[in-house]
């Protein structure tokens, strides 16, 4: 946790919002740049190699998913944290599956955002309460057990408990205290859930997300 301040690139097509995030982040991270579109974001990531990219979901020409897709192979060490006003399930799931290590909404407070950036830069995952709710919902339904990898398509009891606490508004530290485990273990559980989200073969996941948005 004591490492140097993470280097952060802010990618969002609203200049006003970029400025807001910059002030929100304060002194504990180093903002190395801002970009307003996919093209310049890709160039900036390749040139600056930031630790963490704060990524908007909706931008012209493909949005956050497109940015991740274009630099994931050439700059594998760069980590992405999605920061969006959208809390639609299909947006959230799409970005996580593209490779983002977390998803927070734009109403997040300054200290929470700084904390999330630090977490992501250290390789951990960051789930907002709503994302935790989506994941619990998506992995809750009874599905035909055929042709799915049970390892990837189920949450362990502990993982479920951790996600439930996140959805209830607990911080990692508080979850650790509640469940009698260490913060590191909480982080490990969340990272495992993230991996399942990203690798899970089930197309039901995307379908669920789309369905939820359309029908709910």
């Amino acid at each position, binding site marked *: 946790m004591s490492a140097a301040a993470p280097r952060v690139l802010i990618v969002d097509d609203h200049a006003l919002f970029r400025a807001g995030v910059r002030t929100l982040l304060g002194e504990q991270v180093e903002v190395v740049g801002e970009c307003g579109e996919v093209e310049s974001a890709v160039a900036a990531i390749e040139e600056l190699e930031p630790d963490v990219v704060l990524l908007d979901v909706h931008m012209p020409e493909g949005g956050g998913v497109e940015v991740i897709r274009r630099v994931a192979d050439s700059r594998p060490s760069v980590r992405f944290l999605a920061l969006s006003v959208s*809390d639609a399930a299909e947006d959230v799931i799409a970005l996580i599956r593209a490779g983002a290590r977390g998803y927070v909404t734009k*109403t997040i407070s300054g200290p929470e955002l700084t904390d999330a950036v630090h977490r992501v830069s250290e390789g951990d995952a960051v789930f907002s309460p*709503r994302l935790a709710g989506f994941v619990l919902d998506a992995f809750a339904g009874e599905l035909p057990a055929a042709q799915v990898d049970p390892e990837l398509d189920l949450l362990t009891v502990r993982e479920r408990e951790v996600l439930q606490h996140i*959805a*209830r*508004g*607990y911080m990692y530290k*508080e979850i650790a205290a509640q469940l009698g485990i260490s913060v590191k273990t909480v982080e490990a559980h969340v990272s495992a859930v993230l991996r399942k989200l990203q690798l899970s073969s089930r197309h039901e996941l995307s379908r669920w997300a789309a369905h939820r*948005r359309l029908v*709910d």
Partner: protein
Amino acid sequence: MAPTANPSRGALRIALGTGLLLCAGLLLVRATGPWPGDAIVWPAAVAAVGGLLIWSSPSSRPRARRGWAAHRPHELLSRRPPSRVRTLGSPEVSRGGLGVVLVLGAGFAFLWANGGVRPAGEAVLAGLAVLIALALIFAPSWRRLARSLAAERAERIRSQERADVGAHLHDSVLQTLALIQRDADDPRQVATLARQQERELRAWLTGRDPGRRGESVAAALEAAAAEVEAGAGGSVEVVAVGERALDERAGAAVAAAREAMLNAVKFAGEGAVSVYAELSDERVEVFIRDRGNGFDPAAVPPERRGVRESIVGRMRRAGGSAVVRSAPGTGTEVEITIDGRGRP
């Protein structure tokens, strides 16, 4: 695609069946009853079938603009064309075409059989040639016309929806922005207005109907959170997993949760209140958590009836339970639980 899913194929099958039945009937009459003569009846029958095909072809009926109104605004925002707009497609056109061919053929056969062709033979032949030529010449432009008509209708529907979106934004977002400008020096009021508008706009964008609050527990919790925000300020974030219809017992849980939200925004200070609900037909669990100062539940004087009556008592009467967990400095969490289905 399954064969039965193709409407025009089904219709053709029906037409064929009807035609065969007609043939059988006519043959029966021919063998037994009065018969005007082959040369009249057969062409007339063929012409009748052709006419039926033409008239029953959907493209000759004014088509209802069904479905488009049900499109969600976000579909519009993502610039997907309305998916129900059918182009004047080949199956219908070919059905109508088949009808035309049958009627023309029947007329021709009638003339032929009644000896009308031989005198007028050359004229008819010339007419036929002209018709075919015209068809060849105008078919492409006719198709183009059909296609552009479809495109035009899609465009009209789109602009209609755009107008609806505009009207909605005007009534909601622009109004709120005006209010915010007016109250710019009252940060609390501005935050409340913005919150309310955000909630409303989100519900609209995702197509969640606020009218469903009477049917689903999740919708009722959302509505309760919105009311608490509007009334007492603060912000309440609802995350619901699963779903359950709003029955009497679940209704009690929602009412108790609303009371807990009110307490939370009143005593919790700045931070947001988190509401998390796990809903199923077997069980309802709602957690209401704030990050305020917290209190010592044991130290609450017995005459303070708020929590005890409106939350714990209410849940006990409804056959559920409510637990309040709090300690000074850690915030407060209320857990509301109901096991089992609603009372019949």
